[in-house]
């Protein structure tokens, strides 16, 4: 079975320009038609293989920058070869590869793999309730490692201002459907005796990491489990051992009492979190494997044989 991947922020795909994204290692061109509907084509023209994404979006679809062949977003069919005479038509089988695309809560999703696209989109679980901070990056870490590090040491991948994320896990990762959820202690920086000696952690960081797919949710919670910050990070495999990231997150509007620093930050519109595009290799290498072991084990259990051995070639086919 295939799956939906969140590959882009809604606002990143606008006007007559396509966006080049990489998902599961494959390059895609994402664009909208005049009415705002989103489409995804393989970023490869079937004429002479050049990327389609630098081309302009025309009323008939995405136009290849090399010779102007134009491809319908919904079907992938080539509907225009410029310079043809009026009485000539493009052969019916001429088409670019098309991927179903759908949008929810500020994320553009692409369906990759076999089967009918599922009704539920990963981004549907995210709903902003406060001023949003968004971004995208290609991180210098491999995709599966990114997910593992999100469990073993999220402080290598992201930060909350003035917050020290500890690696003291509160319990073990628990299974929630296709995800593992793990809470860990965190403290405000510069308070008390240091993170190792607090009687109780003043904050919790909750990470929700998928076994398969790329939808990650990270929350900063108060000691009373009230959410302060929620972040949805969509990760997917980019090329050469890197990982595509797109994220949206927000500071909850009426959370527990905030430090003066956070109140200031909110007042000037500073983001209440940072996602790292450049990851510290030494820090990641030094991480000991802990809860990610559960993810690897659960992954092996969960994946049906069919899912595990689908060759890349087939995964791409739609």
């Amino acid at each position, binding site marked *: 079975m295939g799956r939906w991947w969140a590959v882009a922020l809604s606002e990143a795909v606008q006007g007559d320009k396509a966006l080049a994204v990489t998902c599961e290692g494959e390059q895609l061109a994402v664009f909208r038609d005049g009415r705002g509907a989103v489409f995804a084509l393989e970023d490869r023209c079937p*004429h002479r*293989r050049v990327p389609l994404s630098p081309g302009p979006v025309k009323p008939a679809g995405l136009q290849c*920058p*090399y010779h*102007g062949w134009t491809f319908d977003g919904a079907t992938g069919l080539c509907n225009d070869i410029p310079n043809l005479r009026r009485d*000539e*038509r*493009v*052969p019916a089988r001429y088409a670019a590869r098309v991927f179903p695309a759908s949008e929810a809560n500020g994320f553009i999703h692409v369906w990759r793999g076999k089967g009918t696209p599922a009704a539920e989109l990963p981004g549907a679980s995210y709903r902003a309730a406060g001023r949003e901070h968004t971004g995208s990056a290609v991180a210098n870490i491999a995709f599966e490692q990114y997910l593992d590090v999100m469990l073993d040491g999220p402080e290598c991948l992201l930060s909350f201002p003035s917050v020290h994320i500890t690696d003291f896990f509160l319990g073990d990762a628990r299974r929630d459907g296709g995800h593992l959820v793990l809470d860990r202690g965190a403290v405000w920086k510069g308070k008390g005796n240091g993170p190792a000696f607090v009687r109780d952690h003043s904050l919790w960081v909750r990470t929700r990491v998928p076994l398969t797919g790329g939808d990650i949710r990270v929350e900063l919670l108060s000691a009373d489990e009230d959410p302060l910050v929620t972040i949805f990070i969509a990760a997917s495999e980019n090329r050469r051992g890197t990982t595509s990231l797109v994220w949206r997150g927000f500071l909850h509007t009426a959370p527990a009492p905030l430090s003066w620093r956070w109140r200031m930050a909110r007042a000037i519109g500073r983001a209440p979190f940072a996602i790292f595009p450049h990851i510290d290799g030494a820090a990641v290498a030094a991480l000991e494997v802990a809860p990610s072991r559960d993810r690897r084990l659960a992954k092996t259990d969960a994946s049906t044989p069919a899912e595990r051995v689908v060759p890349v070639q087939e995964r791409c086919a739609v």
Partner: protein
Amino acid sequence: MSEVPMMDAAGREAEVTSKRDWVPINLDLRDTWFPVAYSADIGERAVRRIVHAQDVYLWRDGGRLYAAEFRPDRLEAMRAGASTFTNGSGFYPAVERYGYIWAWYGNPDNAHEELIPNIPFLPPDGQGIPRYTQRAVRFDAASPLSVENLIDLTHADFLHANAIGDSQSENDVVEVHSTSETVTRIRNVTRKSVAPVMRWIGGVRAQYQDLRAVLHVHLRNNVCISYPNFTPGYPIPNVQPFVPVGKHRSRVDQTNYTVHAPAPFRWLMPRISYVIQPQDNSVLRPQNARYFESTERRDLSSRFDGPGNRYRLLMVRLAERQQRGDFGYGADADPSADISAVLGMRG
């Protein structure tokens, strides 16, 4: 209404081509002369050029030109390692003509000067070729992909629209001819809008002009000889030899022979390479990696790809012939034959 007439001659060629692999990085055609440098660029200090990943060091000493596998200071020490490309001597056959140094790539026993392509608009001894006509550019792709790009006409309307203008014209007819060693593409355009560059600096005030553009491609060495002739206007003959530095890069010492065009067009026009090259490279660069292996997903073509598909077919045929050990030139091939009639040169 009809579909694209895929089954005309060009269409049949596309079908034939599509059954074969088109893996341009694997094309390594031998027994040919490569214009590896402008004569004017080579003095006493050795310069390193590379053909199909084979080093060619060029220098002059006592008025003599040398083309060797090794740097002059290491030549003696390394000569024992000289390859079959120099019969173990370390020195390639090299000849100066048309303002270029031509080095032989292949079996030195087969190096004959008559195999140097004829370029009828350039002085054979290279005397008086102004330096402003000579410009070196580089492409980040296998040479045959660049040649395809040059043969291909329809991309100019998109990739080069700002420099070359749109394709609005009354009539636009393309013919392709070939031998076992060459492809010739002839384009006749009547009443096309004058290219912006010609209007701005080329002194052509008319709104429309006719164009007869001939491109003559030598398959083995990717030497592309072009004779676009504008009426009203003038010809802008040029040579673009895509020397394969390796599988993934090519170097082109162009000669845009604008000496007969009015000033300042004459001096400025060769600089158009600085606009055109990045545009072409923007597609060639990503194309290159996508042709590394033969794939079931063959390229789709339209009838405008007739000349390009003919090129692919002939290249593959020539490569197959060389694989069988046949490096000879066929009876229909005579690189040094005068091509001024082929190019449609006046006078």
